[in-house]
């Protein structure tokens, strides 16, 4: 039987990795992700998870090991944050093209400098173009559920791609929440054993990671993009089947009070819960406001986004990362490009906040709702709460 307990979100993610019968975990500890792999190393050490735990000497080696173990047909998991993801960068770009299913939990944390261990989305945005499926969790239950879903999607033969599961550092990773831990039989119903599309096998040798000169490179990258775009259908199907088994429905794009909203805030990750509270308070004052949250960031679910926000008068796009030297943040830029050629489009503005762990409050969202409705034709991002 599933049991609902109070548990730190990091440990719940580790429990999901255990319930998934993961074969290989190769990881290096880094705050705020450490509790995930620390708990996994305990589970392997005490025999409750029959997996190889590779305590590598760096994140560069962690992702290299993951590439190898996935290519050898093992269900593979790792986790990191910030500088750790930066150190993985070289291999991060290789995994999608080699079509190696790997699940990577990222407890999102700001990139240095200055050194900062707190939450924002600069780490994942630094590898957003690499070809990984990127999911964003909002709360603890979702972090556990999306871990199971990530394995299912990554290993689907129609996908065969790595998946990054983003959960906000500290705000999620270190909070104790009431979370339903499913039982093994139910997980098994949803998540079949990993059957790789190809595997490194000494009995039938093959080469993986070949040179691709000018004659192959363009086609190889395009083939990976095609696979990533096609994964959306499989992700939606996995969400539906997860609901059939566990009774919790997830969507690639979530809406809250957005259907009749004149002004919509679009956000990713855990701050949307704060934003929902702000919406409740503004709705009580009769203001037509709503929230749209992207659970899926890569591949960008364009049709679902247009459906969720296309009718709004004003769209305020939240970024937790500053793109230095550019007019807008990464999510802001993408929303502008999604609507660029649309005949009817919202008045889009871009707000950057919550960098390096700066608190984001209901009042910030109230300000954003007012500001987004009051201004037209914003030409550059606005940082909410910067002292200058």
């Amino acid at each position, binding site marked *: 039987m599933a049991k609902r307990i109070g548990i730190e979100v990091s440990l719940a993610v580790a429990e999901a990795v255990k319930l998934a019968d993961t074969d290989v975990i190769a990881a290096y500890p880094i705050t705020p992700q450490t509790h995930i792999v620390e708990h996994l190393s305990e589970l392997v050490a005490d025999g409750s998870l029959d997996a190889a735990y590779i305590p590598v000497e760096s994140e560069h080696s962690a992702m290299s090991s993951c590439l190898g173990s996935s290519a050898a047909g093992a269900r593979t998991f790792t986790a990191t944050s910030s500088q750790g993801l930066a150190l993985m960068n070289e291999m991060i770009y290789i995994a999608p093209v080699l079509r190696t299913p790997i699940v990577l939990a990222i407890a999102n944390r700001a990139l240095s400098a200055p050194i900062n261990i707190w939450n924002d989305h600069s780490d994942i945005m630094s590898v957003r173009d690499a070809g990984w499926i990127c999911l964003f969790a909002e709360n603890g239950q979702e972090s556990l559920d999306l871990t199971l879903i990530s394995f299912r999607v990554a290993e689907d033969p129609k996908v065969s791609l790595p998946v990054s599961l983003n959960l906000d550092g500290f705000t999620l990773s270190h909070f104790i929440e009431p979370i339903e831990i499913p039982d093994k039989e139910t997980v098994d119903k949803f998540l079949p054993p990993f059957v790789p*599309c190809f595997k490194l096998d000494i009995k039938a*040798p093959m080469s993986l990671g*070949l040179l691709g000169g000018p004659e192959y490179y363009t086609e*190889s990258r395009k083939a990976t993009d*095609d696979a990533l775009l096609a994964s959306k259908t499989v992700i939606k199907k996995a969400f539906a089947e997860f609901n059939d088994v566990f009774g919790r429905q997830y969507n690639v794009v979530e809406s809250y009070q957005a259907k009749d909203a004149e002004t919509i805030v679009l956000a990713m990750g855990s701050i949307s819960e704060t934003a929902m509270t702000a919406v409740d308070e503004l709705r009580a004052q009769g203001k037509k406001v709503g929230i749209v949250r992207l659970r899926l960031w890569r591949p960008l679910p364009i049709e679902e986004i247009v459906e969720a926000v296309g009718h709004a008068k004003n769209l305020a796009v939240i970024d937790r990362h500053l793109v230095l030297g550019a007019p807008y943040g990464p999510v802001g830029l993408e929303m502008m490009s999604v609507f660029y050629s649309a005949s009817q489009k919202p008045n889009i503005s871009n707000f950057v906040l919550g960098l390096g762990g700066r608190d984001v409050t209901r009042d910030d969202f109230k300000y954003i709702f007012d500001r987004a409705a009051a201004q037209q034709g914003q030409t550059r991002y606005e940082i909410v709460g910067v002292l200058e």
Partner: protein
Amino acid sequence: MKKPIDALVKVGDLPLGLCGAPGSTVAFKTGDWRSVRPVLDKEKCIYCGFCYYYCPDGVYQDMAPEKYYKADLDYCKGCGICAHECPKKAITMTLEEV
């Protein structure tokens, strides 16, 4: 759209993960990257094997009965390390004429 002349495989025809038959580098002859080639003066060669061990591409073959080493020009990239390391200056890097 016209097919780009140097594309060899269509997007949809690439194998998943770009995996291939083992040993595929054998078919990939890199010798034409070379601008200078090693030319051996057999008279000076003392069959010490430095060229064989130092060549970063491992292209030297041991010609045991004749007591010298022969560079496989299908793969030699012309780096000149063998010529530099040869204690008898038996190897001369010579410009490739096209």
